């Protein structure tokens, strides 16, 4: 099974220009992510900051090279349904899919515990990697969306 590398950091999300402007970009990314799981309307920035990303159960992680983290997820959990049906794999067979997160991504992964909100993770990113606010939030939103699309995390939505 091949290794999928999930990048973080430089050029993770556009701040100004085609595709989005600042916070609108952040909320659009998170709203898309939210719709993948729960459906719903566009989020306000305040709602987006209160979301709590959580690692899915059954995903194993181990340290990789130079501060990276390797995730191993059961294929059934992260594979789309159409792919599962086409593969005709017996249900008893358990196959793991591997993902590699670079050091910044690994740092975020550790914080996806269902306790830290999006805003708190962005703040920790700012402190640890000395990023500016918009940069940290845009990159974090894009990264969480990638993790969500891969079926590695879930988002706990804020209560109204």
């Amino acid at each position, binding site marked *: 099974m091949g290794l999928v590398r999930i990048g973080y*950091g*430089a*050029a*993770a*999300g*556009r*701040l*100004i*220009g085609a595709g989005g*402007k*600042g*916070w*609108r970009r952040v909320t659009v990314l998170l709203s898309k992510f939210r719709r993948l799981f729960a459906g719903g309307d566009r989020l306000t*920035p305040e709602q987006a900051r209160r979301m709590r990303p959580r690692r899915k159960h059954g995903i194993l992680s181990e340290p990789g090279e*130079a501060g990276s983290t390797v995730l191993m997820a059961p294929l059934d959990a992260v594979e789309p349904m159409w792919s599962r049906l086409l593969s005709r794999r017996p249900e008893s067979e358990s196959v793991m899919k591997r993902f590699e997160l*670079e*050091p*910044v991504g690994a740092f975020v992964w550790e914080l996806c515990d269902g306790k830290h909100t999006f805003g708190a993770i962005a703040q920790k990113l700012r402190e640890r*990697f*000395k*990023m*500016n*606010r*918009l*940069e*940290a939030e*845009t*990159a974090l939103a*894009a990264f969480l969306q990638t993790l969500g699309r891969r079926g590695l995390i879930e988002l706990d939505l804020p209560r109204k």
Partner: protein
Amino acid sequence: MSGAEAARSVARASGPRNGRERFGWQGFQFEHPDDWAPVTLSGGRHAGYARLASSGPLACHVRWERTRNPGDLESRLRGYFVCLEKQAKGRALFEASFERESDVLLYRWRADAQGRGALFFSGACSRVIFLEISGRPKDSLLGPLREVLRSFRSGASHGRVLWSLYGMRLWLPEALQVKGSRFRSGHTQLDFRTRGARVEAQRWAFAKQLVAKHGLEPWARAVLDMDGAHTALEPQGLRLRSASAWPPFTPPKLALVRVEPDRNQIVTLRSLGRDPGIEPQWDWFG
């Protein structure tokens, strides 16, 4: 004192205080809280618009227009109120008022949102400038507006103009004008041009992580596309120079690379051209 030293002393004297950043764009600059960031930048030196958003509902808007004769500022302001009223029509009752404080018109408007701003003519850069803070009806805007107005400067200082955003902070010759830009998370790029010369400024976040594997020099050669360049490590950073190459008459390239560990970022300046006045200098870094 040389022009460059003077520019630096101005930068120090007007340098940002704790928890505040300085935004510099198209010949004007002001201080803002460090959680504000530019989210819209359009136009050029003659006319344009910039919007900075806070992490909350507050936003700062700057509009500028070059003119030799500012004319009647009050009629400009009334025209602006008419535009706002049209936008607010059907949603909320629109109210607006203004007062004159020396050469500045201080105004406020209120509909389903509210704004407080100042309209003035800056003789230093011959531009009429609207500076406005907007927010929800219950937000207090006077304090932030006064703070921004107090630190607002426009025009060149000893032939240099401050370009400061997303951690990039450069004092560049006034002749250089932005012709292209790229704003991505972790990477900011501004392309400047003047007659016969080009300067490219880049800012990279995650400096420590970027150079951890291969080191600064190979990283800089790859990023700046200067494989065969001669490099010299200087106290301020790395200097790369490549002579004219194939095809003939290709202008020489000179690049300066500075690592800023306190911001975990790398700022690079690369010039293409034969004009020695446009070759990057260390004192261009703010």
